[in-house]
């Protein structure tokens, strides 16, 4: 004789309860995932996923900041570039005027006085541009907090420190050009050369040839500075677009780790719902009948 295990009402009840609770628990979990849209709602949901998510989040936050730094740097470089550009134009005009003054045949003292007046205007204009401010600091003044980079007499009052922006983990880019780099050093700087030229224009036209050479030297260093700024602009811009790309990739990866695959979750929900309803139905049918129903 085989013995069948005794099955009691209470056993059935408890099993049904467990089955229903398990079903409801699974439903609740899927529901939580669907309504929060997230696969990982707490570290224990997936410790490795949590690690990835935190790493990616940190990376993305850093990259976003690097991109901000780069865009801030681009603004400074852009302004430097356009300022240097228009200054070069002015210097070219000054060179023409000096050439006119140098040609003794065509230039009498009155004409030279007029040329000197125009050169003075150009020098003023160049000085104003060299003292351009960017975000509250002078563009060519290095890290100095002086409001201007050059005093009216042409003395440089800034410093020659680099301003750098971090555009990647351990990667920095210089985003400023200091006065001496662009406009020459000390007595040979643009403004001193122009001051002397203006004086020579009226008093000593013979020295204009030498002045022209000095001005050409300054114009050369301005061209070099322009080219340098352009190169750096390109570099920072490339870094910025790379950062944007990387951020896109990372955000896709984060979503892969952290976010719910809606289609899968909905299918899971359907399946669990069916299972739960089956458990409910089975419970309702199993718990009701008893021998009592059939006894008179």
């Amino acid at each position, binding site marked *: 004789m085989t013995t069948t295990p005794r099955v*009691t*009402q209470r056993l059935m009840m408890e099993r049904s309860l467990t089955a229903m609770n398990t079903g409801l628990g699974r439903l609740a979990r899927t529901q939580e995932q669907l309504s929060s849209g997230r696969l990982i709602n707490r*570290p224990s949901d997936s*410790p490795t996923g*949590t690690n990835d998510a*935190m790493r990616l989040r940190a990376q993305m936050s850093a990259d976003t900041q*690097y991109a901000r730094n780069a865009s801030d740097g681009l603004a400074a470089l852009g302004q430097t570039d356009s300022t240097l550009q228009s200054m070069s134009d002015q210097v070219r005009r000054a060179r023409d005027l000096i050439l006119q003054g140098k040609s003794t045949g065509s230039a009498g003292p009155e004409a030279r006085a007029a040329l000197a007046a125009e050169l003075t205007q150009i020098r003023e204009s160049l000085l104003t541009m060299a003292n351009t401010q960017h975000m*509250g600091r002078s563009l060519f003044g290095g890290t100095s907090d002086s409001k201007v980079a050059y005093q009216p007499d042409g003395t440089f009052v800034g410093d020659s420190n680099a301003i750098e922006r971090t555009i990647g983990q351990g990667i920095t880019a210089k985003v400023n050009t200091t006065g001496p780099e662009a406009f020459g050093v000390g007595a040979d700087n643009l403004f001193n050369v122009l001051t002397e030229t203006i004086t020579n224009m009226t008093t000593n036209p013979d020295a204009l040839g030498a002045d022209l050479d000095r001005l050409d030297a300054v114009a050369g260093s301005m061209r070099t500075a322009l080219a340098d700024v352009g190169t750096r602009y390109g570099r920072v811009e490339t870094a910025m677009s790379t950062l944007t790309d990387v951020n896109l990739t990372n955000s896709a990866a984060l979503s892969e780790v952290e976010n719910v695959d809606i289609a899968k979750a909905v299918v899971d929900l359907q399946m669990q719902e069916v299972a739960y309803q089956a458990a409910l139905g089975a419970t309702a049918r199993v718990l009701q009948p008893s021998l009592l129903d059939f006894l008179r």
Partner: protein
Amino acid sequence: MSGTFSSFNTALSALRYNRVAMDVASGNVANAGTEGYARRQVIGQATGAPAVPAMWSRWDVNAGDGVQPGGIKRMVDPLLDARARLEHAASGFLDTRVASLNRFETALAEPGENGVAAALAAYQAGWHDVANNPGDPAARAQLIARAETLRGAIVSQDRAVRTEWADQRSRLTAAAEEVEQVAKELAKVNDGLRSAYVAGTDAGVLLDQRDLLTMRLSELTGSKITIKADTTVDVTVQGQPLVSGNVSTPVTVTGATELTDPPGAPVEFRVGNAALTLTAGEVGGIQSVMNTDLPNYLAKLDAFVGQLVSDTNTQHALGNDADGNPGGAFFSGTTAATLAVAITDPSDVAAGDPSKGALDGSNASKLAGLDMGGRSYRELITSTGVLISSANRGAANQAVLVSQVDASREALSGISIDEEMVNLLAAQRGYEGASRVLTTIDSVLDTLINRTGLLR
């Protein structure tokens, strides 16, 4: 050779026996939902010759001496009960631990936008912004605000750990009180059991209570029990007697009353004078959370805070603030609880390199590039996640085991209404049969007594 009326006795014994069977069945039905009630079964015994023959006397061999209830059996299996106690103790340990850890885990707010990791990233970004605009007081003020946010996130974790610890401390006290109460009740039950044993009376209800109380003690403490010959039980917790006969040992909780840095004396569960650290039962679960998991988390959180403070302050001291003075301490404190932002004036943020101009931000740049404990914090969260998910799995496995053992116990001791109905019907039919026997014998005797010799 049986007497004339002995068949009456046989029928009477059947009536009595079936009454008992019906009583037992109705008692079972009545207690179908009673916690701790074990199914009773009446053992029928044919009345027959005594096992020890009397001197000078002879038992007549004849059928139909009747039936008697040989006893009412409680359907329990002590081995199964012992197994159940063991599994319930393990389950109590794991469930308590899991409940506590899960509660504390939700307070971590990781991974997400409101956790410490996000606040740390924002704080580092704040340093970048200061580096970009060293002359802008708004960027400096924002940095200080972000440092405050970071401190808030860290402090709220610290508070969550301490709150959980304090909750568990009061839970442990409550559990100890319950252990003491249950132990006292069990000692009383032991007293009753011994009297019943000596008097030889049925002690079914007391035995039910005994099993229920020992089960609860095991759930609470993982205690071991020894059933004595007189049906009383002795209970020991890690070898320390908790209940011995009708004497129970008082239970107390000693050790630290709040979670401090570094943690104070471990919280101990005292049975009498013996300080115990349990490894099973709800008390064990509470102790493990209080003495291991929470202090470990707090220590690692403090280590992270220490690195944050030292990384920031060391580099900060190398810079110059907006007024050209060397940077002071940016953060004060060394632990999560004592962490504070020491700087309130935005111009005190040392963004610049002393060798450079007043609008230099290179020191802020260097600060922005520091790790500041970010990696160790991530490791902490990951390892906590691993700890909790493995605890969850362990508890889920144990729940399956417990439900299997409970099902086996239920299969043996549980009441099946259908079965009791069948027993009741059988007893009813038996009773009716015995009544019919009476009627038959009555009619036979009627024939013998009233009609014998009568001629019509």
